[in-house]
């Protein structure tokens, strides 16, 4: 399966990027280019776990990144070499390519809170 979804970003809100990369002064003067989250979900066939992971991911993105995300699902059974290139060991694995840095989140994404922490969409604590 290969699902690709793109949504137009509504309002930019990313604390990490703001705090790390953009000084306040410039931020006020510069109009933001809406940032698209590029998410890649690696699965191995349509296992219950991968279906669950995909469902969880989509729900989460809808809730937090509405219109600002792109999910690409990679089935490693079809493209096994992709596992090597992306250093995939555990599945399902979600790789956040953008915004930087690249992060990997493993598991079926059922623990929403941890996914949000992993995606740095929610501050710890």
């Amino acid at each position: 399966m290969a699902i690709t979804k793109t949504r137009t970003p509504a309002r930019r809100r990313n604390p990490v990027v703001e705090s790390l990369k953009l000084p306040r002064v410039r931020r006020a003067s510069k109009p933001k280019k809406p940032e698209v989250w590029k998410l890649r979900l690696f699965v191995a066939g349509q296992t219950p776990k991968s279906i669950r992971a995909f469902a969880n991911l989509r729900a989460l993105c809808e809730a937090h990144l509405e219109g600002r995300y792109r999910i690409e699902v990679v089935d490693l059974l079809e493209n096994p070499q992709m596992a090597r290139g992306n250093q995939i060991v555990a599945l399902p694995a979600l790789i956040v390519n953008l915004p930087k840095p690249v992060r990997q989140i493993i598991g079926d994404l059922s623990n929403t809170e941890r996914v949000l922490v992993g995606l740095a969409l929610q501050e710890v604590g």
Partner: protein
Amino acid sequence: MTPRTKAPQASSKGLQKALTGIQGLDEVTGGGLPRGRPTLVSGGAGSGKTMLALEFLVRGAKQYDEPGVFISFEETIPDLTRNAASLGFDLTRLVADKKLFLDYVHVSRSEVAETGAYDLDGLFIRIADAVQRVGARRVVLDTIEALFGDLPNPGILRAEIRRLFGWLKEKGLTTVITAERDRPDMLTRHGIEEFVSDCVIVLDHRIREEISTRRLRVVKYRGSTHGTNEYPFLIDENGISVLPISSLGLDHAAPSLRISTGIERLDVMLSGKGFFRGSSILLSGTAGTGKTSVAGHFVEAACRRGERCLYFAFEESPKQIVRNMNSIGVDLEPWVRKGLLRFHALRPTYAGIEEVLLVTHKHIATFKPEVVVVDPMTNLLTVSTLNEVRSMLTRLVDFLKTQGITAMFTSLTLPGGSLEANEADVSSLMDTWLLLKAIEVGGERNRALYVLKSRGMEHSNQIREFLLTDHGLQLLDVYLGPEGVLTGSARMSQEGRERAAGTIRRQQTEGRGRELDRKRQIFEARMTALRAEFEVEEEVIQQSISDSKLLDEELLQDRGQMVRSREADVSAYKKNGNTARGRKR
């Protein structure tokens, strides 16, 4: 996900084994690792796990046409390639030839967050893909336990690793799984040994007296007999070599050919023919008793016969030996140049005893000598314990004997200790034992030699003094004095005394001869005189005898004439008689 590749089912008839190609390991395991099953190789940091696993793959790919997959969890591919190059393995080449597939699995914990149930299908897929790419029969997972540090939820991980091993087995892949062992009571850090039930090999790296020794032990090998000892092993530029201590039996041939010792009179002491070919000779003695000189003679004689000699010098450099031998008239230089004699000098301290043994083996295997000299073997004691040296020498002697190589070991005896006790530990391995000793008497130190034992031949029981002259080692005649064998000046004065005594004896004999002559002459003179005297007397006596005879005859004649003339006047005659009687009364 389950890989659906058809797995070759492990044969039910007996346990099949996959040769590792690692020198010695196949002997210890009785033919290699269990084919199609996982083997756990566990050991501490730097014990050589990765090297063993790597060699297993490389040898498999090169020698047994079994391509392999190396999944590295710790080292990156460039690092791995570099390390393998130090063992003489060109991984890049094997990868290019599609005989080997390297994969570096790296999970950085800081980049990973766990958000629910996961499995290791990613790893399964990677392995399956790699296996399929090169048609691998062998797989190495080095060190899979690293995942415990990278991935959360050990419970899931353990279950997944267990599933992985099962899957590898199901696919019939001969797998080596390495594991770190940091506690002596556990084989692996996370207890994964319980998933590997077929074969477990433990590697150990010990430092004793600043010298490291690597050891290998087959802890478990289900369904197969295996050596249970700890076997020392080495990693060098040719890979790993395990030295099975007791795998060699005592079934070497015993040739009855004899070879010269290089010293003529020493040959005579050994029933006139010298050593047995293929025997082991121990040459022991205190410092400066001429051990190396005896060895030098032996080597030179062997080279002269056109035999190849390998000389392991643990104390002197080859040049030094050649120079020193030159001073006693043994010229080794030409043989070195001819390639018949090869020196191999090394300080045993540079490596552990096993390494020394291995180097020895290797050189013997490549040079194929007929004669080997180890000078001095006691230097090995500086790097190891007596037990280890003994076991090493046993192996070396066995090895040399099976190869039919005549070997001479020199042994330095410490002064003060008993001459015969120190080497007693190895002497039982030796066929011939020559003891060199310094005899100190009369303010001198002289060298003497005797044959302490020599199996299978008659040998001299004498202690013989010898000199190191500029034309070689000279065994001298035996002089026995009241204190035992006379040596040096004592011998010389004894020789002098014997010479003087001989002269006197000779003179006495001559004198007696002359006296006899004289006596004979006197006797003969007397004889002549006596005879003359006798002859004179005889003549006189004869004369008187003949005179009296003559007289008798004349008287008889006269009486007859008177009777006739007197007309037998017998009465008158009678009357005369009676008258005389009557007068007397």
